[in-house]
């Protein structure tokens, strides 16, 4: 029988795929399709006006630009943090480890208010930065600071387990075969970590794009300058413009999806490269 001949070694494929699809549809696809359905009520012209107004375009630039930059910063410093946490023992390590997750647990509004209080011109840090001409609160730089804060845990938590699995013996082997420190890091350690780093980057980026609560307090929300796309969406909702809000939301969704696809593609490419190399 045809079915018997194509039977997989691992049983339960049909059932688990069915579950996966049903679950994904229920949790992700149905709400998202509502966004696109609502958007479809607009004429092409009205859609274009909603998503391509100069103010909205300026907000895409800020949201995606600051999110990519914040994710990049978090990738570099998240790797350093993960490295310290895995490779060294120091007093208070467990506390530092727990601190990393704090941005996850904190309500975003609290984070926003705390950061604003810190960086405002009368705040702890702001009072020293302001005389130097560095304005953080109520500027695009403030948006970046908030996004770096909320994205911190992602890279640390994705890289940490991979680093833990990475035997120090491999590095020792590299060293005994004559590799310098730099060579060991660049050719042995980093390639193994790249997939995890990319995952962390993607997660931090995705979180930053959707972030509203913390940014809204520190951004200043000036049109064309420090207005993020989620605020544009909220603004449209306040004006009872559901369709316009979902139009902008759909642009964000598609852009995020494409970017995440690219990152995932990059990741599987580095995975394959790493597999070939070993």
């Amino acid at each position: 029988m045809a079915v018997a001949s194509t039977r997989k070694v691992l049983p339960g494929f049909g059932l688990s795929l069915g579950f996966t699809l049903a679950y994904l549809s229920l949790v992700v696809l149905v709400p998202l399709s509502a966004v696109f359905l609502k958007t479809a009520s607009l004429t092409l012209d009205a859609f274009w006006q909603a998503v391509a107004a100069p103010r909205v375009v300026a907000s895409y630039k800020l949201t995606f630009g600051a999110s990519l930059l914040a994710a990049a910063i978090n990738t570099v410093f998240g790797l350093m943090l993960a490295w310290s946490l895995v490779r060294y023992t120091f007093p208070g390590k467990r506390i530092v480890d727990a601190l990393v997750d704090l941005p996850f647990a904190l309500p975003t509004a609290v984070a926003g208010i705390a950061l604003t209080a810190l960086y405002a011109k009368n705040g702890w840090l702001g009072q020293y930065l302001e005389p130097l001409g560095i304005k953080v609160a109520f500027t695009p730089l403030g948006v970046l600071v908030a996004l770096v804060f909320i994205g911190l845990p992602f890279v640390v938590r994705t890289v940490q387990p991979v680093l833990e699995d990475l035997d120090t013996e491999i590095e020792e082997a590299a060293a005994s075969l004559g590799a310098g420190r730099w060579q060991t890091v660049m050719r042995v350690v980093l390639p193994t970590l790249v997939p995890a780093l990319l995952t962390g980057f993607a997660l931090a980026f995705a979180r930053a794009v959707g972030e509203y609560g913390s940014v809204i307090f520190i951004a200043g929300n000036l049109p064309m300058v420090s207005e993020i796309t989620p605020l544009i969406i909220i603004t449209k909702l306040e004006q009872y413009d559901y369709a316009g809000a979902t139009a902008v939301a759909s642009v964000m969704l598609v852009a995020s999806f494409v970017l995440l696809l690219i990152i995932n593609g990059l990741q599987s490419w580095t995975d394959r490269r790493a597999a070939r190399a070993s």
Partner: protein
Amino acid sequence: MPLKHLFARLAFSLLTALLPAAALAQTTILNVSYDVSRELYKDINPAFIADWKAKSGETVTVNQSHGGSSKQALSVTAGLDADVVTMNQAPDVDILVERGGYVAADWRKRFPHGATPYTTTTVFLVRKGNPKGIKDWDDLTRAGLQVIVPNPKTSGNGRYTYLAAWGFALQKSKDEAAARDFVTKLFANVPVLDGGGRGATTTFTQRDVGDVLVTFENEALAIGTELGADKFEIVYPSLSIEAAPPVAVVEKVVDKKGSRKIATAYLEFLFSPQGQEIIGKHAFRPRDEKVLQKFPGRFPAIKTFTVEEALGGWADVQAKHFADGAIYDQIIVKR
């Protein structure tokens, strides 16, 4: 007895003690309101409950829901079972008429004063001693001055500020192009657009940003009492806008729940001398002249205009100024 059993027994007896109390509260109404009315209704509700108990013998529970006014209106159209709505601007009640007839079309005629139990107006709050010498709207357009205003796109408070400035300029020049120029200059002086009135207050008072905060009188008075009158002072401009937060019964919900009588009485209570006095205590201007006189010096006389009489009503204002791509969007992008 093991401790665990003791706790179980305790919990059980507590539960049985509470149940009859819950069953006794037969009537519950929900007041869906805007953001800064939270403190006001915290005082109104117990007073109304006592009043209703005395009049009818019934025990009523009043639940509150607060949030951004427009967001709250959307929640009602999405099925939030509000018996009454107490919003901060008329468009948020009108939308309930348009989107499914939740509120009667003639809601303005159902209660006195166009169904607005109190008013407030837009004033300036400056730092103590008024170091920048800010006296009137003209001063806010001076180059180099920083004006804190909540975002008119997301806040009724900000919308009133914009309209007050517009109305002032229009009255002075009788020319729309000049009014447009005036609000452009004013908003060019705004360094931060907070989402709501409270956020703008925080930016001005806590973050020390700006030379003047333009906000509702009730908010300005509350800042004086809560954050110290020695730090700020209120400046009344020569002309301002009258903000009259509207109230309405949600027909669809009271018919379904059979709570029309209580809901109506609840809103009527706002217009009673007792309700008006609580309103005055919360720094809103009571409609009742007699009650107003109980607060000498608190509410200085100020010349005001309303959206209806000076600007052609909310529907016009919405379309002309605040719709996407309308005047506000144009001037804020040009700044």
